[in-house]
């Protein structure tokens, strides 16, 4: 009500009716999701984090197109080079194409880059590693692996975890009990075992394909990380479904003769979704860190491919009191920390927008 409310002699004028109408329209019942979107946008930190993640995803996808040095090109003389400020050396002409095996899309992107920029590449703004490879380029190329791992794990825990949890919660009784005990057992096996065995199992040349591999090493890695990250999601979903099943309005719907499909679609699914969404934002950082952990142990991606975990592990290894190549730790750690922080803030924002926990401020 921005306009003054004094409407003369007590009767409403035409303009007042217009005003009331717009007010009414604004307060008209909106759908749950537009409401959630609005409340999410109201939070500055979450909004900016979401933007940061989007920018990061775009940078990761278009990394081959950017005028970066090749992530595998070495300049051994005098390595590691300290970072040079962009204003002292913005670009140079030393680009040489050295890439690992690339997919068709990446090959096309790299070809476009070579046509667009030729020999021009950005200076080593973030320095180079002990083998003289450009840190910025490796971080951007590494983000492709790290983000893809996170995405795969999220998809697995979404499909497998939600299906398992929902099935257990909906069936209830003995089936539920059995499915939960199976989860108990799976959770009691050390994850690292499952990872190692699955990796060597899937990486072995299969006889059926004439000694060829069904999947590339990277694909196997993504699959394995996904396979070990769905257990808690199943638990969370099952808990939510169980709580919903005995909610009064669901019982009322059942008393009115609603079918199971209807109840799931109309009552269970929309109420499980928020929890799932928030839980995914918790899974993503955990998976990115797990990739770092596996890469540190040498079980992760192999050279010439890079990931943030590989970079952080290399940096930690290069850390010594004699040569202080601090940027090799600082750069990947900052990338990791910023991404995980942004994911966490988006998760918090989502939770607040969905009003899952009023108590937390």
């Amino acid at each position: 009500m921005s306009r003054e409310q004094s409407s003369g002699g007590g009767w409403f004028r035409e303009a007042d009716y217009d005003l009331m109408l717009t007010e009414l329209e604004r307060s008209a019942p909106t759908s749950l999701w537009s409401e959630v979107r609005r409340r999410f946008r109201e939070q500055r930190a979450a909004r900016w984090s979401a933007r940061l993640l989007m920018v990061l995803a775009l940078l990761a996808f278009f990394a081959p197109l950017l005028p970066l040095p090749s992530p595998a090109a070495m300049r051994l003389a005098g390595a590691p080079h300290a970072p040079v400020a962009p204003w002292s050396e913005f670009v140079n002409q030393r680009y040489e194409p050295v890439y690992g095996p690339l997919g068709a899309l990446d090959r096309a992107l790299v070809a476009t880059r070579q046509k667009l920029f030729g020999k021009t590449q950005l200076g080593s703004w973030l320095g180079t590693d002990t083998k003289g490879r450009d840190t910025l380029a490796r971080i951007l190329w590494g983000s492709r692996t790290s983000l893809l791992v996170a995405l795969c794990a999220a998809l697995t825990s979404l499909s497998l975890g939600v299906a398992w949890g929902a099935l257990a919660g909906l069936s209830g009784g003995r089936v539920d009990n059995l499915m939960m005990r199976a989860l108990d057992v799976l959770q009691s096996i050390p994850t690292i075992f499952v990872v190692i065995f699955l990796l060597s199992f899937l990486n072995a040349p299969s006889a059926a394909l004439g000694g060829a591999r069904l999947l590339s090493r990277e694909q196997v890695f993504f699959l394995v990380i996904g396979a070990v990250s769905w257990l808690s999601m199943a638990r969370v979903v099952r808990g939510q479904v169980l709580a919903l099943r005995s909610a009064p309005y669901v019982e009322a719907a059942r008393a009115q003769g609603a079918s199971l499909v209807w109840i799931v679609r109309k009552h269970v699914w929309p109420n499980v979704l928020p929890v799932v969404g928030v839980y995914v934002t918790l899974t993503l950082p955990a998976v990115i860190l797990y990739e770092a952990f596996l890469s540190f142990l040498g079980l992760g991606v192999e050279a010439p491919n890079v990931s943030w975990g590989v970079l952080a592990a290399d940096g930690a290894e290069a850390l010594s009191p004699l040569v202080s190549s601090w940027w090799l730790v600082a750069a990947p750690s900052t990338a990791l920390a910023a991404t995980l922080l942004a994911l966490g803030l988006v998760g918090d924002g989502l939770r607040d927008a969905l009003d899952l926990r009023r108590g937390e401020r």
Partner: protein
Amino acid sequence: MIRFLVRRAAWFAFTVWAVITIAFFLMRAVPGGPFSSERRLPPSIEAAVEARYHLDWPLWKQYLQMLGPLNLDERGWFGDSTRVTGGVLAADLGPSLQHRDVTVNEVLAQSLPISLALGSVALFWALTLGLSGGLIAALWPGGKLDHAARALSTLGLALPNFVIASLLVLSCAIAFRLFPVAGWGSAAHLVLPGFALGVPFGAYVARLFRAGLLEALAHDCVRTARAKGVPRARIVWRHAMPSALMPVISFLGPAAAGILTGSLVIEKIFAIPGTGSHFVASALNRDYALAMGVTLVYTVLVYGLNVLVDVAYTLLDPRIDLERDA
């Protein structure tokens, strides 16, 4: 309580059996054997080595032999009694396939205390840092201390622990020479690795505890207590603390199993001879016996700690009835 514990014991037996069985067949299904990576041995010697570890037996026989104190050999169920066979039920895990002339029991007896000591220090750090950070943040929500605590906990969660460990070594061990760089032997050797191992858990505990305290402090009973004039410290201690601790405990229960069995990364960086390295090495080398041993230890710890969590729940919240919920 007794009935609850009996029920859980039964489930415990089932879980251990299931884990053993899955682990056994998973290991055998994976290509490669314990001796396949080495220099090719002459066939006669290879056969002798395999016979020593019963790898020449059919799978079901190996399984039974691993499981129980049955004395199996070629002549039947109870044959030559000089060939001692142990088994999980007899708490004898047999000889290690990779570490020659050492049994798995000996390997575990040597490395487990080390990991337990390290894990206890890490748990201590996690609890001290986490609980104090969470408490400070929750007492003045929105204040400077709250923001500082949240920023620190975010950093602790977002940095891989090998980065934290390297930074610690560089600052506390090399620059200031406060603690030894690596190794094992004295109490001073425990401080840095314990801290590095505990920090991420402490960061998570701080977040959980803060959220739990804020939720608990919004309860009606707290308002009533304040209206009665109960001092603030007593309100936090008596009314908010118990329910705020519950999410912390349910997180720390399973997490402690991982901490206590050692962290591969931390043990590698600080050159600590704990169980952590055996998890990876035994799986990579197909050391079936040792892999079974560490799996068993881990499973028992996870399960035991989960039971402890449930028991702790009843102490913190008298409404929870284990007999009914078990």
